[in-house]
Structure formats: C-alpha cells, structure tokens
C-alpha cells in the first residue's frame, strides 16, 4: 500500500478519534465505573448483588419504576397527540414566509430555564394560581382544586416541554415529504383523510418515533420536573436515585437503580428500533 493510501486510511480514523475518545471518556468509562459501583456494598464490602435485589424486593422501589413508566407513557402519548396537529398546521397551513417566525414562537419556551419554567407552572397551578382563580371566579368550582403537587402537575410540566421538541421533529419530517406523494394519492382517488392515514402518517412515522423516543428517554430520566411539580406525593425513579445520595451517599445503590433505568430505556429502544431509522424505508 502506498504512503498516500495509508494516509487515506488513517484520515477517517483521525477525524473520528475525538468523537470516539469523547465517548470513551465520558460515556463508556463512567458507565463501567457505575456498573462496578453497583456491584459493591455501601459499607465497603466486596462483590454483591444486593443493590439489585433491593430494587426487586422492595415494593416502594418497584413502585417508583411503575410510576416512572406510567408518567412517561402518558407524557409521550399526550405530547405526540398535541404536537402532530401543531406541526401539521405549521408545515401545511402557515405560509412559508411566516413559518420561521411561527417555529420560533413555538420553541420560545425553550429559551427559559427548565427550573424557572417548572416553578412558573407551580405558580400557575397553585391554590391561588391563575387556573384556580379562573375556576373559582367563574363559579365553576366553589373551592380551588388541587392541581399543583400532583401527578397531573408533573405531566403538565413535561408535556409543555416535550410538545415543543416533538413539534420540531415532526415538522422537519413533514417538510421533507414531497408533495408528489399527496398528488399521486389524489390522482388515484384517495380523499384527504385516506391520503393522510395511508400516505402522510406512515411516511412521517419515523419523525414521530424519533421524537417520541427522545421524549421517553428525557422524561424517564428527569429529576427536576417531578421534584418541583409533583410535591413528592409519589416517587419516580430519578427521585429514588437522588434520595440514595443526599444524606447516606449510597452510590452503589444509586448506581444499581440507574443501571436498571438504563436497561428499561434500552428495552424501549430495541422495541422502537424498527422505526428509529433516519432514512425512510
């Protein structure tokens, strides 16, 4: 092989090395360290599986996973249902020259801090907040409803955030869709509903699934929103993980719980992998 041939072979590796190094340093090694930690005892003893067995034997721990999956599933479904029509209106109904502005307005809440946004929701949903004042002021309810510090509040905070994320992914997918598909469907006699159900929706499914998967991953690992809006009236997995660290510094158990959470995300990824291809089938 010539020198230039070697250089041609080496260059791609040279270019990809920083990314590989980054992944190795900041994902693979920490993950291995976490895996190792999860197999050690908090009191400094040797190898043990007790951190994992605690999760499966303690109903309160197990319940945290159930709560996390329930909340995440609801958030993902509701966000998709809200984001799709929103993205469709942006892509199809808003004139091209206004789309950029409309998109910017749609993602405007991204510009504020996540924590500030969550506290803002707490004030909106509070007993003396805007919603309760409107409900009691209009005479619909005589007493304020408990909206803050509930699962509903957590879901509301999450949905507000993830609708924006999903809108972006679905919008991008809709914009990539050639108008020829719809024209062809119309030529073949399909009405708007049929065209949507049999042409547009299947072709935008990758965008939906990518957005939904991102929503799932980010939501199931989020600590801030349930902590601020949920009022600790139930624990989700990230809260349970943090709880092990606060006073007791039980990193082995926290690591085990984190790995279990990652395993669940991996299972969901594998289940969705078919639809998570970037290119269209």
């Amino acid at each position, binding site marked *: 092989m010539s020198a*230039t041939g070697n250089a041609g072979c080496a260059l791609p590796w040279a270019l990809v090395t920083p990314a590989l190094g980054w992944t190795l340093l900041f994902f693979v090694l920490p993950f291995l360290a976490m895996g190792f930690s999860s197999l050690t005892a908090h009191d400094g003893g040797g190898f043990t599986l007790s951190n994992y067995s605690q999760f499966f034997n303690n109903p*309160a721990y197990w319940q945290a996973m159930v709560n996390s999956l329930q909340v995440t599933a609801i958030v993902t479904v509701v966000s998709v249902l809200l984001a799709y029509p929103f993205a469709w209106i942006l892509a199809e109904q808003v004139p091209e020259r206004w789309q950029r502005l409309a998109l910017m307005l749609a993602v405007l809440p991204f510009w504020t801090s996540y924590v500030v946004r969550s506290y803002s929701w707490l004030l909106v949903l509070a007993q*003396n907040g805007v919603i309760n004042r409107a409900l009691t002021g209009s005479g619909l309810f005589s007493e304020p409803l408990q909206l803050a510090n509930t699962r509903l509040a957590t879901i509301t905070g999450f949905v507000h955030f993830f609708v924006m994320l999903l809108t972006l992914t679905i919008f991008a997918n809709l914009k990539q869709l050639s108008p020829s598909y719809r024209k062809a469907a119309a030529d073949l006699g399909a009405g708007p509903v049929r065209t949507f159900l049999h042409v547009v929706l299947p072709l935008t499914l990758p965008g939906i699934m990518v957005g939904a998967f991102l929503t799932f991953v980010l939501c199931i690992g989020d600590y801030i929103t349930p902590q601020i809006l949920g009022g600790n009236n*139930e624990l989700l997995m990230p809260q349970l993980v943090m709880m092990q660290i606060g006073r*007791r510094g039980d990193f082995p158990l926290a690591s085990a719980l984190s790995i279990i959470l990652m395993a669940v995300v991996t299972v969901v990824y594998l289940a969705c992998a078919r639809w998570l291809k970037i290119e269209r089938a």
Partner: protein
Amino acid sequence: MSINLKTPNPTAKDPLSVLKSHLHAACAATALLLATGSFAQAADLNALIWCDHADPALLQPFEEANGVKVNVKEFEGTGAGMAIVEQSQPGDWDVMVIDSIDIPRGVEKGLFEPLPEDKLPLADLFPQVKMDSSTVVDGKRYGITEKFGYNTIGYNKTKVDPADMQSMAALTGDKYKGKIAIYDYYLPVIGMAALAIGKKTAELTEADLPAIKDELLKMKANAKLVGEVTASQTALATGEVDILVGGGEWVTAGLAKENPALDFSIPKEGAVLWSQSLAMFKGSENKDMALKFIQYIMSPEGQARLATSSCYWGMPANTKAALSDEQKKILRFDEQPDFLARAQPYPAPNADLDKKMQDVWTEMLQAQ
C-alpha cells in the same frame, strides 16, 4: 482518492508544525493557568458549605479583614458533601459545614483536624447545643456547633388555631387535612413521629419503626405535599398550606417581615433539635486561615450574620451573638432555655438503622 499530506510549497508553513506550535502554546497557557490557579487556591480559603454561608453579608467582612477570598461550594446532605471530598485532592478544602451528628462520620474517614478548644468560645455556647457526644471523638473536638433550631410545627397563625399547634395530634386529625406540608427530610420528621408516639429520639431502634411508619402514614394522608426546603417554605408562605411538619424558625423567621403571620410552636410532645457544625479538614494547607474563619463565624458578629443569613435564619449557637432586639424577638431568643429543655436530639442512627429509616420514608412517600 488519496491525499498528499506533504505541502508542495516549501515557503508555506507545514500544517503539522502549525498544529504543534498551537498545541505547545495551548499547553503553555494551560500550565500558566493551572499555576496561577494553584497560587490563587493556596491563598484562598475553600469552604464546603450550606447555603446560609454563601451570603455575601456574612463572608465579605471576613474577606476584607483578612485579605482573603473565600471560595464556597454548596452541597445538600452529608453523603453528597462526603462525595465531593472523596473526589477532591487532599488540601482542596479547608473547612466544612456539616450536620453535628455526622461529625463522627468524617472523623472515621480521617477527614477532620482536631480544633483547639482554648481558641474557641465554647463557654459562650448554649450548653445543650455543644453536642459533645458528636463533636468530640476520643477526647478531641472535631467540630463546633455554629447554628441550631428546631424541626417542629411551623404554621400561619391567621389560618390555624395556635392552641391546636401545641399538640402533634393536630397533624393527624381531620381538622387540618389538606392544609399540611411535610418537610422532606427523613431524620427530623421521623424524630417528630417518634415524639408523637411517645418515644425518645435518642433511643430509637428498629423495633420502633412500624409504629413510626403508621404515624408518618397518618401525616401523609393529611398532607398536600412533601417538599424540600424551598418547596415547603414556598408552600407555607404562599398559603398553599397552613402548617409545615418539620418547620421551625428556619422557615418562619426569615419571612417574618414579609409575612408576620408565620410562627412556630414547640408542642407538648417536644421538638427535634437540629444543629450544624463547622469542621476543619486535616489536609488543609491553610489551617491558620481556616481557624480564623471558624473563629470569625463563632464571634458575636459572625454569629449574628450567620443567624440572619439570607438563605435561612436559625438560632446562633453563641449566646453572645450580636443580634438586634428585633432579630432576637423574631428568633424567640429569650424563650430558648424553655425550648431547649423540651427539645430532643436529632436522631443519630447507625448506618443500618439509617438505611431502614430511609426505606420507611420511601414507603411513606409512595403511599397513596
């Protein structure tokens, strides 16, 4: 396709040389930065603190008087603090604020330096908060209590009957259902639950946990939320709830000007005494300055500033704290002898019981 890496123009700089010279420059700059950083670090005082020590009104007088910069890092929970220390190099930290009951944990890990008792105003401290059982290990003092208070019942006196707040029974009865928040820290609230069922906090064992759990579940059934410091304080201040289980002067005193209706009681069953201490790191390379800092915090002026910190108020451990009459009134300074007599120590479980207590707390949080 191949790429010729050699430059065809001998007058132009070899890209590899340019890269090397840039790397050398970057390395030199980094070394310089690290060097200046380490000089700065050596001259500074590095403190692992709770948020009340981050108040510039507390730190600035010390910095100006001693020509030193106090670098602070806030943490919550002894476990998190210890983790920061374990991930640091010896000498990175000079002083630490820590739950008084957790000082033996630091001593066991070999982190702390004994403090010179003759250079500290120990005689001026409220005797009940010296906490020698925790702050003195093997005859050596490793910590000094700087601030204390009570985990008890905080409430809005315009919304509840203050007479009801003299008994913990109000927390589990129907009268205030849905008007209660619980402070989200298992040790003090478990201590309160223990007091409610007539147990002494210093004598808790695993056998007490089922009864404590029942009491906690009754409290939870009445509670609107279980919140950490900010959330529970906000809930009480905004009227979301009228009672805070585990609240005390640390919630009500700082808000006294904005909301004078907030108050706290020490019910007939008693209250849980919390206290925070200062400790010096054995690996500190700036022990003289660290001791000066501890002496400043324990001085009457330092104590007053710490007690009224913008993050949260609390009782100064030093009886000679230079508080104004108004501040003393807000903190109920003159009532302290009675309060202290009725308060019980913070639960200080061993590692095994601590874990079981946290699990009981987890079950309480998950209960619907």
